[in-house]
């Protein structure tokens, strides 16, 4: 099955949070921006941001401390790399290979570029 659905807003926010953590802008142990702050910054419904945060919590990237807010887990960056790697191998690589085939690009050409 080949689904190329447009990405949902809550997934886009999730990926934005990945970037913040991987780039070091958000440090482990720190408090994540509040749901309201992000909703206002991105001009989206707070329920949407909440959905992203709940998903990030299920992925064990952030933790909800009742009444205080969400905090970045110590191993958040490792978790994200593992998730992104899986996504990359399962979604982006097949797409890449499909395009290579379509355009008649050989593996040798790609390997030469990577060197």
């Amino acid at each position, binding site marked *: 099955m080949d689904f*190329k*659905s447009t990405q949902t807003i809550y997934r886009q926010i999730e990926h934005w949070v990945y970037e913040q953590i991987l780039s070091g802008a958000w440090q482990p142990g720190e408090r994540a921006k509040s749901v309201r702050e992000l909703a*206002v910054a991105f001009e989206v419904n707070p*329920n949407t941001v909440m959905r992203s945060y709940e998903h990030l919590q299920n992925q064990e990237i952030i933790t909800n401390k009742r009444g205080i807010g969400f905090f970045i887990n110590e191993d958040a960056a490792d978790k994200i790399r593992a998730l992104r790697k899986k996504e990359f191998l399962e979604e982006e690589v097949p797409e890449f290979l499909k395009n290579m085939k379509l355009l008649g690009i050989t593996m040798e050409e790609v390997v030469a570029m990577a060197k």
Partner: protein
Amino acid sequence: MIQLDNVQFGYAKNQLLFNGVTWHFEQGHFYGLLGRNGAGKTTLLKIMTGLLFPQNGEAKLEGMPSYKRTTKQLQNVYFLQEEIYVPHLKIKEFEDAYAPFYPDFSHEQFSEYLREFEMDNMLGFIDKFSHGQKKKVMIAFALATNVPLLIMDEPTNGLDIPSKSTFRKIMASYADEQKTVLISTHQVRDLHSLIDAVSIIDNGRMILNAPADVITDKLLFDIDNEKAQDGKVFYTEETPRGIYQVKENLNHVDSALDLELLFNAAVQNKKEFTELFQ
């Protein structure tokens, strides 16, 4: 809260505009009411708030028929109409005159919203302001009332480009579990990131009324190079990027809700959609 049950209404004697509209709400959502020109969106809002009376069926506000317009009912709802009437008053005078009607009115919020709309230094009479400026004052006031149900008819009409963005930011900070917002609009691109429940009225009936997550669970909004082979396709639209499609979401894949595609799909598949979203 507010609800409509089997409402019938028409302006002309033998022509019904609504033939049994039922509309219930879940608290804490941001509803977008969509419909073609003349579908009766504004009329529906007027019936809900007791400005027009249903000929049959029932419109209820705070557990009582809307037409009663008791103090308790009117304290709990604010209806910002598209064509706004503003009295010959300055902003401060308007606030002093109208705020006392709303027990939860916040003067701090009103000042804050005016500042965000860059209307805080306007000393003249509101009725002399431009259309967009009037609208911003009235939006700031409507939000500051903190009513549980806020109804706005085409709020972004007349707002300039930066003000639309300010409006979205204010709305994002305004939403919470206690407050329900209902916006009737054609400008879906202005508001799609805020709307998290959709109601579509067509041919005198509510053909869709569902939270966004229920919609995306049942429908897949997809862009692809060829038409889907599997499952039911409700709507397609060819573009240079590929074919936009609204189809049955057989595998429960998450996709981004597109309000324009949803609207077109809904009006073309009234019966199927009514069943799908029972």
